[in-house]
């Protein structure tokens, strides 16, 4: 597969996952607010903090009102990670690689785009929870179509790697921010916390029911274990990394696997997670852990780029072997 095309598919998938994550965060927040009319905890600020782009927000919006935060995260065309920007980027990427993905996938992403554009023009602003739920459904639909219509070849594997690397990033980010915010309101980390608060964390990564099946009762340690270290839950960081790792090794880059920097980096991070417990993460400082996790994820992203997409110079060896075959 062309490096340029692989790059576009990888980012198409990342952008869609990003839009889905943002929409889910907002939808959960909207629902959470409805559940506690008297609650004075500021719910919108953490969402902006989860993006890591507070500076941009403060400059352009100021107050953390529902309308401001929703506009920022949903339709701001100048903000690089809004739902609108992400879906436009995903769709633009898909358009350049239409021939490399299934037409069903292209049509779905195109419908997704037109759906977001129609909501943007709708007089009802900010949009209600139904809109964000639809965004999530559109994203699921696309994921399902990709899985159901594409050969597990290079293209699909890059889509899959992009999807899961983005997901690992977003799950860790929301955990970081929610954890930090919520801890301000609790005194004892080892007791069962306010179900509502923590279940909102879990719901924002669609994991509430799966968590209940696994653990039944909520503790911080269990939540950290489930969202970071679980190897079976599809939104957990570790599961996501395993998926990305599998897809990258399926692609089988230009160099042997043991030399492939992207895979080496992913393995190193997986090794670290293997050697870590939820207790250790909490004791060592949740925020520090997530910080270092995100740093590793960025390194993997860069390694993926260098390994597969940045092929530029014609290697001298290939030129020589070509000369030999000619003679």
């Amino acid at each position: 597969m062309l490096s340029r095309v692989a790059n576009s598919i990888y980012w198409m998938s990342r952008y869609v996952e990003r839009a889905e994550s943002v929409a889910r965060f907002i939808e959960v927040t909207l629902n959470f607010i409805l559940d506690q009319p008297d609650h004075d905890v500021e719910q919108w600020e953490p969402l902006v903090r989860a993006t890591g782009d507070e500076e941009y927000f403060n400059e352009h919006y100021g107050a953390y009102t529902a309308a401001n935060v929703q506009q920022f995260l949903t339709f701001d065309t100048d903000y690089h990670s809004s739902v609108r920007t992400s879906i436009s980027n995903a769709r633009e990427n898909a358009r350049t690689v239409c021939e490399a993905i299934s037409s069903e996938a292209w049509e779905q992403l195109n419908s997704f785009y037109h759906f977001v554009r129609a909501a943007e023009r709708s007089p009802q602003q900010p949009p209600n929870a139904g809109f964000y739920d639809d965004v999530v459904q559109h994203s699921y639909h696309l994921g399902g179509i990709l899985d159901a219509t594409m050969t597990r070849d290079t293209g699909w594997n890059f889509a899959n790697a992009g999807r899961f690397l983005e997901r690992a990033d977003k799950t860790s980010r929301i955990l970081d921010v929610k954890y930090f915010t919520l801890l301000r309101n609790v005194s004892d980390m080892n007791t069962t916390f306010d179900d509502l608060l923590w279940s909102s964390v879990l719901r924002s990564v669609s994991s509430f029911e799966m968590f209940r099946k696994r653990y039944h009762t909520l503790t911080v340690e269990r939540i950290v274990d489930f969202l970071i270290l679980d190897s079976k839950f599809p939104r957990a960081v570790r599961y996501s990394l395993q998926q990305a790792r599998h897809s990258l090794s399926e692609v089988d880059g230009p160099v042997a696997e043991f030399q492939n920097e992207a895979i080496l980096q992913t393995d190193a991070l997986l090794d670290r997670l293997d050697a870590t417990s939820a207790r250790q993460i909490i004791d060592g400082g949740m925020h520090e852990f997530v910080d270092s996790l995100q740093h590793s994820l960025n390194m993997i992203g860069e390694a993926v780029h260098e390994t597969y997409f940045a092929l530029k110079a014609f290697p001298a060896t290939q030129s020589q072997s070509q000369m030999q075959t000619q003679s």
Partner: protein
Amino acid sequence: MPGLTFKNYQTDNFYDELFYPEGIPRPGAELLVDAIDQLPASELRLRQEAISRALLRMGITFTVYGDESGTEKIFPFDVIPRVVEAIEWNHIEAGLKQRIKALNLFIDDIYHDQNIVKDGVLPAEILKKAKSFRPQCVGVNPPKGIWCHITGTDLIRHTDGAIYVLEDNLRCPSGVSYVLQNRMIMKRSFPQIFADSKVRPVVGYATQLYATLAHLCPNDVADPTIVVLTPGIYNSAYYEHSFLAQQMGVALVQGEDLVVQDDFVYMRTTHGFQQVDVIYRRIDDDFMDPKAFRKDSMLGVPGLMQAYRNGRVALANAPGTGVADDKVIYAYVPDMIKYYLNEVPGLPNVQTYVCDRPDDRAYVLEHLDELVVKAANEAGGYGMLIGPHSTKEEQGKFAELIKADPRNYVAQPTLALSRVPTVVGDHFEGRHVDLRPYILYGKTPWVLPGGLTRVALKKGSLVVNSSQGGGSKDTWVIGHPGTEVEPQEATV
């Protein structure tokens, strides 16, 4: 509100493709007309709207220039097809095959011995001043001796009922993706009418195109690597480039994806560099290779022409074919058919006055108010004078242009293109159409049974270009009586 029906439809003294002047359907159109007249009142409009939505969902759109919010529009598509009966199609198909054979022999001749000039059939002066002649192609022997692999020839029907060739498009003719997608959508919308009418399928185009390209492979490989080369996403035909690559299952590449090394062409893949054997290029000659053509081109591949000349890679269409798109050289195609094939042209040219010939020039200068004057190397309606719609001042300006550079101008009578009923609000009106069939030339010439019917949607307009209010229609070539199934296998 009355439903859409043909009951009050008027042909207004134009040749109508579906109806005789008395309002009786032509052969081949009866079933279609019956079926549409029997649809419930609002049904046709609902189907037309469903088709527009499908086109939007499929992303078959173009961006409206100057609109900041990036509004996208679909190319207007009208549900009433143009119908071509079997016997007439046979005539068109034979004429096109003959024409493409002669054009191919012509291009090969002028880049080699130029016998047609030596024998006095084409004046030397005309060839010498052909802007699209490419000196870089002199002496080149394209794989299998074929230059024009993909051609879209524009045909029109005049009031006399005959089909004429308006122009040949031998560079990068576009539009075939609309033919295929329009058909797919029409089949969904009117399945029963299709089944009854014995419409010949167009679905085999991608297979034929692939076979045509594979036939050109210059390298000794079992499974050639074929790519479609596009200028990129901002090209107006990008959708088509991507569609064709997808339908053939080949890579769609941009200049930056390719590299030439030791005269071989490679593409940059996630697995390193992979050799490319055949390139269906949708980039004009000028932009293909900055080393051989325009040095400022960022779209092309440096060294591509050298690789091509040395027979390491095949290019379709071959560079240099555009010389036969020159509107003056077009005037000589009937002579070419006689010269190379010793045959009578099956499809006549539109009567063309070549201003380089003194008699023709004198006639043109006297009749500027009646004729359409065209510059030899302009396209898309540029450099044109439409006599009956022009002012004395414009005519004067063109008279000067013609006198200054007679080689650069031809003139043709103003034609009354035939019409096809078209949905206009709550009723049908006749709208002028042309027809672009597609010819592939691999082992032998092959003509897609159908083609792009472009329709001038504005009342009375003769301009079918999409940029000027044109739309498209499906083209139904009716099967021969008794032929139920036809082979879709490639002919290579």
